[in-house]
């Protein structure tokens, strides 16, 4: 039976994959070509992974029911558990192979992740859906109802576990959407978090379902009788209780299981926080301050020298006094619409928050004054915001009116659609066009009143004329200068003093461009290796180049000046591809974690800082 079942499931899976493989062709032919074949295939395959996992689980008894063979199958000379193994085993094997192949294809770049969800998370959801639908298939005969209930159960169970394990006891509900629901997992997969919490997140939601199936299937028969359902219910409840305990336990053990997050303040205090815990430890030279902030929803965000700002799981922005540890709630997002926070930037005493609006085509910029806690909401409506991910890259004043430069990247679009907008505080939206069209390939940087579009196409520099942006300089096609200046960093105030130079990659070399003359001058080699990477960060006026290579597993830091690149410090053995490695540059220094070791190094010379 095992072999027969395996052959059947394999045949079905091959047919399914054939359909998925062919599906992009008519889409490309009839809907216009949104991209190459692989780009269209990727999201289809991602969704296919999820739905096929659901189907494989839900069809546990599908053939028996469809061919009126349930009674025959149950009278075969196998125990019920043996029958379950023979029916579910091949499905599990095929599904694991299917998910593994898909995961490898995405991880190795054979197929690139669509923007729907990361591949790792899709594998996780696929596994959950498989086990949940497998379990429910012995209770529910109607296939459509079964799929719907499985889908809802998967979300409800995942949601419950996340609430219990990661968000804490009294926290309000997080956004019930894919991003919100799986946010910690999302961050975990993308952000190299440690494995055990992820495993708990994946396994716990399916525990009650699997326990119920294993415990009750011994009494499964053609009737789906009341005693059978009672056993299922009892086992499910027990599994749920175990799951809740484990989730609480997991949350309690997050201190040892969860990965640590660090934040280095402007005055070199090191804040330490773990996903799921309620405490932030603030280490200073010779002292440590313990601050209980309640369940925290995201890593520490930024500081202004005297205060540290953090979002809790109830969507409250909290200010932590770095000297006393006192807490002060600053702001809470609109709880009636559970606004999603896209971006946050600071300038002056203002924190600008970009929130989702009450409609799909609406966003709101909340200008929050840190001193008075006054929040001014500015609503913007336009098609550009539908499925878009807006980020503020600059701000300014014109004729007494505030504006924000906003860059929007459409989620899930192929090719990725981008738009650059100027949002005026009176609600007007000005689309920034280049030669009459939105520039869709290059990425904008707003520096010193100039808007740089750099990337794959030749660089353009636009200047604000007050009413619109006009081209100041268009670089020739062979002059590729790809800005690597981290102007996106939310910790850098938008109104930071204007720079004299911006830094970028020109071929295999590091170069800088004068913001006054727009002349580019060479600084030195970007890196000797093919897999070299790098970026520029600033400490005050001084710019530093952080460069490394994946193969050499190294990190070198250079000070940049007219004289070129001067090596400040090397960090051998830093392998940024390792999941347990983090390397973050703050305004005051650098924090490197690898394995269990934490190193803090202060600018300007990156000397070691010791904490208790």
């Amino acid at each position, binding site marked *: 039976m095992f072999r027969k079942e395996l052959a059947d499931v394999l045949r079905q899976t091959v047919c399914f994959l054939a359909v998925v493989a062919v599906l992009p062709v008519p889409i490309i032919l009839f809907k216009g070509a949104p991209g190459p074949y692989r780009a269209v295939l990727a999201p289809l395959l991602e969704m296919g992974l999820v739905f096929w996992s659901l189907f494989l689980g839900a069809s546990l008894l599908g053939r028996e029911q469809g*061919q009126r063979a349930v*009674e025959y199958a*149950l*009278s075969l000379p196998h125990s019920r558990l043996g029958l379950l193994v023979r029916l579910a085993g091949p499905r599990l094997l095929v599904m694991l192979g299917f998910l593994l192949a898909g995961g490898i294809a995405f991880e190795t770049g054979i197929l690139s992740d669509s923007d729907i969800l990361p591949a790792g998370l899709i594998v996780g959801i696929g596994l959950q859906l498989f086990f949940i639908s497998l379990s429910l298939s012995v209770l529910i005969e109607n296939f459509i109802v079964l799929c719907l209930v499985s889908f809802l159960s998967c979300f409800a169970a995942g949601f419950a576990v996340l609430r219990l394990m990661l968000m804490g006891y009294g926290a309000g509900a997080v956004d019930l959407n894919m991003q919100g629901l799986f946010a910690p997992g999302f961050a975990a997969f993308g952000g190299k978090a440690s494995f055990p919490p992820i495993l708990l997140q994946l396994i716990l939601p399916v525990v009650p379902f699997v326990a119920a199936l294993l415990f009750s299937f011994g009494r499964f*028969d053609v009737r789906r*009788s009341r005693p059978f359902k009672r056993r299922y219910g009892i086992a499910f409840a027990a599994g749920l209780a175990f799951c809740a305990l484990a989730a609480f336990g997991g949350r309690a053990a997050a201190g040892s299981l969860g990965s640590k997050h660090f934040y280095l303040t402007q005055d070199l205090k090191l804040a330490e926080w773990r996903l799921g815990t309620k405490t932030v430890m603030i280490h200073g030279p010779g002292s440590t301050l313990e601050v209980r902030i309640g369940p925290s929803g995201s890593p520490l965000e930024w500081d202004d020298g005297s205060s540290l700002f953090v979002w809790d799981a109830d969507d409250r922005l909290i200010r932590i006094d770095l000297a006393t540890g006192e807490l002060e709630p600053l702001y809470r997002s609109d709880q009636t619409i559970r606004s999603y926070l896209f971006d946050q930037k600071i300038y002056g005493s203002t924190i600008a928050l970009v929130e989702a609006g009450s409609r799909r085509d609406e966003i709101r910029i909340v200008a929050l004054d840190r001193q008075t806690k006054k929040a001014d909401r500015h609503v913007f409506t336009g098609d550009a915001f539908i499925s878009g991910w807006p980020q503020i890259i600059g701000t300014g004043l014109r004729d007494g009116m505030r504006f924000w430069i906003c860059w929007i990247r459409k989620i899930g679009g192929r090719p990725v659609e981008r738009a650059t907008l100027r949002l005026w505080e009176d609600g007007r939206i000005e689309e920034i066009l280049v030669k009459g069209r939105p520039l869709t390939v290059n990425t904008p940087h707003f520096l010193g009143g100039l808007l740089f579009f750099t990337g794959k196409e030749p660089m353009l520099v636009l200047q604000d004329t007050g009413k619109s942006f006009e081209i100041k300089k268009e670089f020739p096609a062979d002059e590729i200068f790809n800005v690597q200046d981290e102007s996106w960093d939310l910790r850098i105030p938008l109104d930071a003093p204007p720079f004299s130079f911006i830094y970028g990659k020109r071929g295999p070399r590091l170069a800088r461009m004068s913001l006054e003359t727009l002349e580019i001058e060479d600084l030195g080699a970007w890196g000797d290796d093919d897999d070299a990477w790098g970026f520029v960060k600033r400490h005050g006026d001084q710019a530093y180049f952080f460069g490394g290579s994946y193969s050499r597993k190294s990190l070198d830091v250079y000070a940049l000046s007219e004289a070129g690149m001067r090596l400040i410090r090397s960090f051998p053995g830093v392998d940024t591809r390792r999941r347990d490695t983090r390397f973050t540059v703050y305004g005051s220094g650098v924090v490197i974690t690898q394995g269990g070791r934490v190193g803090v190094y202060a600018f300007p010379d990156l000397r070691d800082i010791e904490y208790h």
Partner: protein
Amino acid sequence: MSDPILTADKLTVRYGRRTALDGVSAAFAAGEAVVIAGSNGAGKSTLLRCLSGAVIPDLGRVVLGPGLDQARIGFVSDRLSLYENWTLREAWRFHRTEFGIAAAERPPIEGFALDEGRRIRHLSVGERTLFHLSLILAQRPSVLLIDEVVHGLDPFLRERFLETAIGAMDELKTAVVMVNHVLSDTAEIPERVLIMDGGRIILDERREDLMAKVKKVAGDASLPPSLPVLFETASEYRRDRYIYPFREEWRTGSGAAFADIGLDEIVKAFIGGAYVQKRAR
């Protein structure tokens, strides 16, 4: 009875709120032929399903006798449950593997042959029944459970079916437990008769004993009120009364003519009596 090869021990089965079996106990010996009869919904098929393992009783248990395992229990259900999309060849291969049958060929049923490439769903009810029986017989079953499939066969196939089942009984000492309403063709097969009503066994007798205990009185002759009338049918032209349990001494003195009747009519009397009792309640 010799040691039972299969025992139903206080089986209770419910379908929702309806009780299909209510504490049913029965034992079956090797080589024994038993017919189970009863009104519709009496619990006959449910009992067979419990014995086959397709239904797990809510209470009670099915005990397999020494040396009997599940692979030696053959069940031809009234639903003729098989994977319908398979060809006969595929079904045979699967059945052979699952039941660990050594024989490469299915035992033939005399006078009955089918194209092995045909799909099960394309077979007639009769063909499907005989195919199912041939699969079961390949298991060399120690117990053969047959659920109300015989009357779906034409006279020729019915004869083939019964001859094959009897052949198995002779050769393998197979216990045959058959649910059947129509006993005109099969009256000589069972050694024992179980009659069920309302989820209970209301009669469990050897065939000879039963036939001796049930008599019919035709006509309007008056009967002593002490005679136990199991069931009575009356119309403008005809009146029949069925006496159970009958005693030979009643032939003299009661003035009535007690006639022997066939198993078919005995079963009809019991079922009719059960309906009357139900109406009276």
